[in-house]
């Protein structure tokens, strides 16, 4: 099923019970789809005065956090009820990430990052940085926060109130950051169409290049055996088994030679499969090394192409949501495909 929400789809997530999809949009709204009554469509709630810039599930199951260019981090319940979690005035809240199991929430604006613990009413820990935050990621165990910025990634202990971070230096502007499922690798996307990674257990680091476009998305396979990335005309998957990707070639799937680049990737929550969206709005599901690719969304020929900006799986893996920069949202139920 498809809907036209008419604004840039910034973020999307499913609730832990796989019943709802929730999206935040560039027009400042949050939209909720009840999958038990998908025919009724999305319910839209006006949340930000400007637009949403970042989105994540809240630590409270069913609620979500959206950060906006009105300086507010707002918790939104499924019925549209809101609670202001932070208000930074004229500053933009550009990044948010959470770890529901441990109750940590982190968000960032410009050169400041903030960490909130589970306890209500506590002031956030404020982390002041030399350069603006490119991305935030909490490790799978929920103990450490990676902050990417210009010339390095810093790792902070979430439970600590202060203390110096462990610095992972590498020259250049680091944007998105992610952890491998075992927590041993930290990987960033860079301004220059490249990835940089570090293995924490022995401090080795590595660079992966050769991309034709900016890498706007990356996702580790569920068991961490490979890292899928956008930025090329096929889905590039770097092996992370047997000592990491150093000196190895990636495998790939999908796409057309010299065709539109991959703009979004997301690993299936259970199976060894990757969903990938392209700059022309196409969405596929496939596996590295396999030539069998399942087309999920094929944009109509007469439609203005719009890049896939977000992907979200339900935790049970039955449904996939794909959203585009133009505001088109597609939801596919895989049980009805087989």
């Amino acid at each position: 099923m498809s809907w036209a929400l008419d604004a840039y789809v910034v973020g999307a997530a499913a609730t832990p019970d796989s019943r709802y999809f929730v999206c935040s949009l560039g027009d400042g709204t949050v939209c909720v789809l009840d999958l038990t009554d998908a025919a009724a469509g999305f319910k839209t709630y006006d949340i930000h005065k400007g637009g949403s810039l970042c989105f994540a599930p809240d630590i409270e199951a069913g609620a979500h956090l959206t950060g906006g260019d009105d300086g507010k981090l707002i918790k939104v319940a499924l019925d549209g009820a809101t609670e202001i979690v932070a208000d930074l005035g004229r500053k933009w809240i550009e990044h948010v990430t959470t770890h529901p199991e441990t109750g940590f929430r982190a968000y960032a604006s410009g050169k400041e990052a903030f960490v909130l613990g589970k306890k209500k009413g506590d002031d956030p820990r404020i982390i002041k940085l030399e350069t603006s935050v490119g991305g935030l990621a909490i490790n799978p165990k929920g103990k450490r926060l990676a902050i990417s910025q210009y010339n390095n990634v810093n790792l902070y202990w979430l439970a600590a109130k202060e203390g110096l971070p462990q610095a992972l230096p590498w020259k250049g502007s680091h944007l998105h950051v992610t952890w491998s499922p075992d927590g041993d690798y930290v990987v960033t996307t860079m301004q220059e169409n490249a990835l940089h990674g570090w293995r924490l257990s022995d401090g080795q680091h590595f660079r992966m290049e050769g991309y034709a476009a900016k890498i706007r998305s990356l996702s580790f396979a569920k068991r961490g055996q490979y890292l899928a990335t956008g930025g090329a005309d096929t889905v590039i998957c770097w092996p992370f088994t047997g000592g990491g990707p150093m000196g190895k070639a990636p495998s790939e799937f999908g796409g057309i030679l010299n065709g539109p680049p991959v703009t979004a990737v997301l690993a299936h929550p259970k199976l060894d499969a990757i969903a990938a969206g392209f700059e022309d709005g196409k969405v596929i599901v496939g596996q590295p090394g396999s030539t069998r690719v399942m087309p999920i969304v094929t944009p109509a020929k007469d439609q203005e192409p719009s890049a896939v900006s977000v992907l979200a799986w339900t935790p049970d893996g039955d449904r996939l949501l794909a959203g585009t920069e133009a505001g088109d949202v597609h939801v596919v139920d895989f049980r009805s495909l087989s």
Partner: protein
Amino acid sequence: MTEQIPVTVLTGYLGAGKTTLLNRVLSENHGKKFAVIVNEFGEIGIDSDLVVGADEEVFEMNNGCICCTVRGDLIRIIGGLLKRKGKFDAILVETTGLADPAPVAQTFFADEDMKRRTKLDSVLTVVDAKHVLQRLEDSPEAADQIAFADVLLLNKVDAVTPDELAAVERKLRAINPFAKIHRTERCAISLDKILDQGSFDLNRIVALKPEFLGDNHHHGHDHGHDHHNHDHHHDHGEMKHYHDENMDSVSLSTAKPLDPGKFNTWINDVLMSKGPTILRAKGILNLADADARYVFQAVHMMSEGAFAGPWPAKDKRNSRLVFIGRELDAEALKLGFASCQMA
């Protein structure tokens, strides 16, 4: 094709009148809605969610090009603004008085997302007629901002005598031979003269001809009165060179067609070896065996060129090339350019 939002970069020394102009853009009814990126909210009279503060973070690109710097904060902020489709028609970026305009301009060529979703329209520099000559003496940024401009707003003209104004204008024209100059008081100017200029649009560079080097008959008298000026040229010459302690400009022209291969090799070599000292370069070229005009521009080492339509029937097919930068070797450029000409 994704719609590209035009971006105007506003530079100028502290006190020149940038804030006055910004307030006019924000408050006047000109039918366009602007998102404005400022370095300080301070004196902006308008409280709007389309006015955003920037951090002026200059990043080096890891592409082996030492002069390739971009504004990381602009990439982030404009990326965020672009998610609000339909809320604004154009973007105005204000820089601080001390800023080098190059990283701002390069951001729109070096970053893929910026290139796809936006187009740099022009660099607009506000100059204070009363103080600019002093600023040129004491701060190198002032010369950079003038040299970089597509449009110069010569402001506070009521504060100087006609002779002083003429001297200032000669100096500006000498530093920057291709900018349009508008005289204003309190930045009072019709906004259509400063916005939507298409200065970086290769197809429209052709239309900039009157200011662009072009008309030697009219501008000839602008030169030669300045004791720094090494002007060798009047209507028939091939090179015009301006040099002082702040800035060089070298204007080359020839009626002979250029050998495309030789020109390409030469210009790439010039940009690779001298890119850090070249602020801007523009050219309209008559390549041998081509019916269309070849238009070329560069910001430091970054360049682009394309054929931009046929030569107008009445025009002479003269190739013209202008470099603005520091410590340019005019003789070497002249010889290099001559070596590209067909026998």
